[in-house]
């Protein structure tokens, strides 16, 4: 059954901003989907609020809406565009939930829009826990004993019946948000209350705990005629209890005999068939390690993080095939893109193993609760491919940018055996792998570790092998590259997708290199997604690759992030799925012998390899290693600015607490502190006192510091960000952005506004001049990102990064300047004046745009949501409007602000912010919000003739305080700027956490609160904003 000819125009819904549980994998899936639709000449209407995606590029779809992913907005787009169908299964949980809301309300039917892929009934059966359980019972598939509860009493009764421990799983939440394991009734009450609150349908599942069982996953594909097969079986290193997104995963399953394997495979096929899924579906199962007893955990009737992993682990493009199925094809009609001769109706077979290692944000969030459970906390992941688990896990660790080259975690070395044993039996944390390895090193027996952790002995023996032969697995002799071909070598593959193995004979990359007759360029990718390095850098890399290909180069990508477009096997001419670690990169350079390497698009991951590469004689394309080094070397950079007569906040580099205190006294508090070579403001604070410095230094010195800690005078003022492109002679600034929040809030966490409204022409010219001077002095070829603070009317440079930044994708889209393309061309020696976009500051378009950060606070419990110099956001959205207020309104809606125009506002403002907050509070008064304030804030407001209800802090009154007020649901916003510091034991931090868990919008900066107030007052709502097709945005460079 070929293509459904009635489908001529299809809406694709993306997954929105990157949050924990929903990352770059959906850009990869969505982009693949669009390509497939294009092959069949289907017109695409794309909707996604995330501007940092490839899928929102103008060459991917005919119509692109970077608009809020809300029912109201999507309805308006459907009314305008009238698509024939809507793809529900490629935009993660966000896309699926939205599609279901539209279908349930009857809107799709009314508009004659077909839900492509699985039917609403199927999705309901898979997503609604009760319906799912009933379906499983009908087909005789065992589920874990459980009960559904819509209130706390039912939860408690259910748990008593099932027996503790029990697992709490809220319905319809992302990445298991709000779930957890309760060992006691007390814990249950805590977890279940939050879970009920977070579930959009106030429903949780109370489930018997099967902790210690093996966790197995199958990616299943089914078409409309009922052909059904599995793409990839995966086994979790950590047994049931740790969210699969937080678990080390190996593909294929490794400890299952064929009998167990086929039992679970058949179960997966039966489940997916009984649900009637059309497309990709993920099935999670638990297997008792001592018998054939198993239970179905859950299914996801859509492409997912696991399907991206399975696609990259096998070479089988799940999103592509799922899209083909959604528009009518059957599996035997779809060609296997890897072989080009066989069909998608087969099961990939691997002749290697793939290992996934999650990347957690705890290196930045030192106070966050690091325990791993049913709620996912990882921001990203790396995958590695090798012939053995031992090689693969070491590759994964090298590539995860933990500062480790093996499994020895230095901070565990000094712990006693007793402590290590305790760590094994206590909660699982991000250090699990290293604690287990340390235990093996200390001579704990495999049986003992297994008995405590329930990690299968097979994995433990693998770690023991590494310990026994540490050199064997790190030895690069006879290292060869093999191909991922979906079929274990049975058929000839055409896709040059490689990984290295030790002790090989045949190097399959060589014939490709030998027959290449173009100049070769290697582009280094950006590694795992983490806070500070998001999808923006994959966007930049992919554009760099495309441009180089157009320019006639043969392009080679090295990257290890399975979620991305850059690791799609048809993005570059050759893909090496390898760690971005100097030795691994050099091995590839040694066989590829490229003309040069591009390091400036892959974020911090890529650029930090510059020095080592240059040392080994590798040609760095674009800005030279020398230029990069000047930006990173504090003294050299200071000298340069001094020479150029450019101002920067005064500062010093230090190594000890004593010196830090001395320098701070000299500079005067507050000061900004951070280590050299920072990423996303990693471990960066504003110290207001001696105590802050002491606390900070104690934490930072836990890890050996090879480079000095930097202390700068903190200057508070308007923060300005400039991305520029330089060809060594001329400079083009596509746009100057300003931040709503003044300096002190990390640029990645600030709301960024373009065009800047507080920068006049004189200042703009001044900024251009400084930028140009810096570019020329550093001999920049390509992109540079400079952050300024405006202090007493003067621009001070606070940061210079000679590489692509996180604002590049959005700025490219709203200015019409293809920044990555120009940067790639200038990196390769072309001149700006010949590229058609001019030099100087690019003309300002008529529309206004606002980039709003998005946080994942609901997943990271115990993390203070207060914003500071250390970046906390995981993603971003874009608002585009005819004026700033409209853009801001749309941006805030997209970012998940509830934008309620009534209800209560809680005010708890620290002394130094009170004056500046006053005008903002007056705006809320004007809008008739009911105000509540803590004592200090209230007395200040009384003095200013503003009436508020006084509320007490938690410690002041146990029964009637801010916390209990929040729970009443009467509160729309909370403005909380009280108390600095990273210690979340603080009362105000507790309140902010509570608000975050309850979904109450919490503002921690006066500037953000002011922007919100303005936006609320502007009169915009979701029905009167202009919905903008960005392919038709008017800029100086479009018609």
């Amino acid at each position, binding site marked *: 059954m070929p293509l459904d000819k009635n489908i001529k125009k299809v809406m694709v819904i993306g997954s929105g901003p990157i949050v924990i549980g929903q990352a770059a994998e959906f850009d990869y899936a969505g982009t693949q989907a669009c390509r497939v639709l294009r092959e069949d000449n289907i017109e695409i209407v794309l909707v996604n609020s995330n501007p940092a995606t490839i899928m929102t590029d103008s060459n991917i779809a005919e119509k692109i809406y970077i608009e809020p992913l809300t029912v109201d907005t999507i309805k308006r787009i459907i009314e305008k565009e009238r698509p024939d169908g809507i793809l529900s299964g490629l935009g993660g949980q966000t896309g699926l939930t939205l599609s279901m809301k539209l279908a349930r309300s009857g809107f799709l039917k009314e508009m004659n829009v077909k839900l492509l892929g699985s039917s609403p009934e199927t999705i309901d059966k898979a997503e609604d826990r009760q319906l799912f359980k009933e379906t499983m019972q009908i087909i005789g598939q065992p589920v874990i004993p459980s009960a559904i509860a819509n209130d706390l009493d039912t939860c408690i009764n259910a748990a008593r019946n099932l027996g503790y421990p029990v697992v709490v799983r809220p319905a319809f939440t992302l990445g298991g948000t709000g779930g957890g394991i309760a060992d006691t009734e007390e814990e249950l009450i805590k977890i279940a209350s939050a879970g009920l609150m977070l579930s959009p349908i106030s429903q949780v599942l109370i489930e018997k705990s099967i902790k210690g069982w093996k966790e197995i996953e199958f990616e299943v594909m089914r078409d409309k*005629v*009922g*052909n059904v*097969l599995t793409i990839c079986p995966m086994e979790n290193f950590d047994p049931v209890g740790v969210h699969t997104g937080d678990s080390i995963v190996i593909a*294929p*399953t*490794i*400890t*299952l*005999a*064929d*009998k167990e*394997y*086929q039992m679970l*495979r*058949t179960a997966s*096929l039966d489940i997916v068939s009984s649900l009637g899924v059309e497309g990709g579906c993920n099935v999670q199962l638990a297997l008792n*390690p*001592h*018998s054939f007893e198993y239970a179905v955990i859950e299914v996801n009737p859509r492409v997912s993080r696991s399907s991206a992993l399975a696609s990259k682990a096998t070479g089988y493009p799940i999103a592509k095939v799922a899209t083909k199925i959604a528009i009518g094809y*059957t*599996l*035997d009609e779809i060609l296997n893109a890897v072989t080009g*001769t*066989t*069909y998608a*109706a*087969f*099961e*990939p*077979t*691997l*002749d*290697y*193993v793939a290992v996934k290692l999650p990347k957690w944000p705890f290196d930045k969030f030192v106070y966050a609760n690091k325990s791993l459970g049913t709620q996912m906390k990882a921001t990203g992941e790396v995958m590695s491919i090798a*012939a*053995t*688990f031992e090689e693969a896990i070491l590759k994964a660790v090298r590539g995860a940018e933990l500062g480790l080259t093996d499994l020895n975690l230095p901070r565990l070395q000094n712990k006693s055996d007793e402590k290590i044993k305790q760590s094994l039996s206590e909660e699982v944390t991000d250090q699990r792998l290293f604690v287990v390895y340390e235990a093996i090193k200390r001579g704990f027996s*495999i049986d003992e570790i297994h008995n405590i952790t329930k990690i*299968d*002995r*097979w994995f433990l*023996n693998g770690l023991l092998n590494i310990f026994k032969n540490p050199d064997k697995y790190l030895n690069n002799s006879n290292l*060869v590259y*093999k191909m991922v071909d979906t*079929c*274990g*070598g*049975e*058929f*000839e593959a055409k896709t040059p997708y490689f990984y290295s193995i030790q*002790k*090989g*004979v*045949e190097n399959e990359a060589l014939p490709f290199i030998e027959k290449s007759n173009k100049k070769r360029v290697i582009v280094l990718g950006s590694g795992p997604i983490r806070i500070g390095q998001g999808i923006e850098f994959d966007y930049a890399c992919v554009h760099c690759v495309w441009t180089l290909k157009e320019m006639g180069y043969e392009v080679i990508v090295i990257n290890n992030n399975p979620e991305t477009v850059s690791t799609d096997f048809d993005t570059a001419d050759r893909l090496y799925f390898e760690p971005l670690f100097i030795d691994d990169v050099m091995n590839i350079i040694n066989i590829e012998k490229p003309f040069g390497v591009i390091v400036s698009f892959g974020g911090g991951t890529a650029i930090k390899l510059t020095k080592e590469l240059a040392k080994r004689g590798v040609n760095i394309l674009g800005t030279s290693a020398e230029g990069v080094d000047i930006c990173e070397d504090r003294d050299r950079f200071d000298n340069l600015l001094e020479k150029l007569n450019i101002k920067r906040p005064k500062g010093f580099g230090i190594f000890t607490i004593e010196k830090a205190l001395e320098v701070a006294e000299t500079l005067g508090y507050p000061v900004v502190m951070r280590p050299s070579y920072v990423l996303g403001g990693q471990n960066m604070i504003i110290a207001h006192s001696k105590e802050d410095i002491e606390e900070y230094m104690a934490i930072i010195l836990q890890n050996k510091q090879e480079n000095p800690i930097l202390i700068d005078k903190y200057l508070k003022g308007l923060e300005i960000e400039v991305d520029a492109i330089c060809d060594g002679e001329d400079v083009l600034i596509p746009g100057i952005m300003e931040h709503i929040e003044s300096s002190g809030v990390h640029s990645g966490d600030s709301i960024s506004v373009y065009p800047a409204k507080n920068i006049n022409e004189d200042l703009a010219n001044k900024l251009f001049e400084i930028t140009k001077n810096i570019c020329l002095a550093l001999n920049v070829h390509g992109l540079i990102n400079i952050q300024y603070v405006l202090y007493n009317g003067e621009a001070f440079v606070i940061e210079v990064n000679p590489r692509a930044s996180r604002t590049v994708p959005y700025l490219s889209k709203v200015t019409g300047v293809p920044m990555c393309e120009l940067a790639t061309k200038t990196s390769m020696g072309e001149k700006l004046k010949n590229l058609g976009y001019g030099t100087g500051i690019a003309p300002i378009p008529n529309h206004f745009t606002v980039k709003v950060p998005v946080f994942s606070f609901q997943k990271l419990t115990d993390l203070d949501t207060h914003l500071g110099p250390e970046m906390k956001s995981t993603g971003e959205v874009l608002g585009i409007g005819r004026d700033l207020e409209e853009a801001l309104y749309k941006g805030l809606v997209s970012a998940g602000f509830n934008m309620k125009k009534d209800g209560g506002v809680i005010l708890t403002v620290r002394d130094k912010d009170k004056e500046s907050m006053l005008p903002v509070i007056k705006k809320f008064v004007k809008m008739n919000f009911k105000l509540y304030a803590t004592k200090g804030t209230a007395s200040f407001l009384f003095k200013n003739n503003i009436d508020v209800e006084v509320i007490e802090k938690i410690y002041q009154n146990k029964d009637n305080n801010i916390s209990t007020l929040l729970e009443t649901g009467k509160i729309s916003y909370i403005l909380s700027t009280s108390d600095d510091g990273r210690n979340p034991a603080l009362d105000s931090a507790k309140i902010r956490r509570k608000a975050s868990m309850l979904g109450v919008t919490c503002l921690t900066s006066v500037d953000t609160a002011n922007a919100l107030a303005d936006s609320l007052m502007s009169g915009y709502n979701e029905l009167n904003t202009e919905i903008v097709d960005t392919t038709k945005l008017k800029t100086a460079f479009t018609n």
Partner: protein
Amino acid sequence: MTAYLVLENGMIFEGKSFGASFDIIGEVVFATAMTGYLETLTDPSYYGQIIVQTFPLIGNYGVISEDFEYKNIAPKAYIVRYPCQDPSNFRSEGDLDTFLRKQNIVGLHGIDTRQLTKVIRENGVMNGIITTKNPAEVDLKPVKEYTIINALSAVSKNEKIIDGNGKRTVALMDFGAKKSIVDNLVSRDCTVHTFPYNATAEDILSINPMGVMLSNGPGDPSAKENDSIIETLQKLMSLGIPIFGICLGHQLLALANGYKTEKLKFGHRGSNQPVKDLSTGRVYITSQNHGYAVVNGGNSFINVNDKTCEGIDYGLSFSVQFHPEAHGGPLDTSFLFDRFMERVDKYAIR
């Protein structure tokens, strides 16, 4: 100990020996399944062959005797990249190395198995020798001349066996039958009488069977030595007894019905082979292990990839090239045993 695989074309692969260690010649074939190595090792269809596993980690779940398909290891030798020394599974009875040693089967590990697989893919199936001697001095003449002969007499059980106690009496012609074929029939209320490969039609008819099952097995179906079997099948066909053939059984039944068979370049050996049911359009993933195929015969099933014959329906009798009994491999086509039962019952009523 260093050991070598020398192919008949002179290509040498250096690895290490495990299991038993002596010089051995066989036909080198690759198998692509990621699980089921025990079922593979004990599948009599591999008689006379040296198996290369494409998945590099073999032996992870140890040796589990209840999963064996046959009383002993059928192939001549076993090549894996990394045999697991510390298997882990609740049913594991020991490791692969010890098992091969006990069964006196030669093992070779540590070679570039993917390279070897590609050589076979490009050149077609080749003979080879595993040796611990200087590979440069290997005499290739006997390697080149090696053919698998008298395979059926080697693997067929030379005795009458009765399994199960069901209402349906089924005769199984044992060409090297996998245990799972018997298990599938017994679980469907059959009494299974196993006959040796050279049983005559009269022998079989003596039990008054309601159906005849033709098993899998090794070797070239068109070999002269199989002529008498083909005659027997022709007789059984003419009596209108429902026959169900699997793998070699399928090929022999096809030969009995006038079809021809041919040798494939490198065969189908794995558990991911897609076949299409021509009557419904449905595709099933199947377990396969064969080096020969029926020429142009597929009227019920064909291979999705290379379109070769995967099944023939003769009306009452039918046969498939793949393995619906699975073990190892997918259970997706076990419904074919139900189909056989339907036909057996239909015949019984008539």
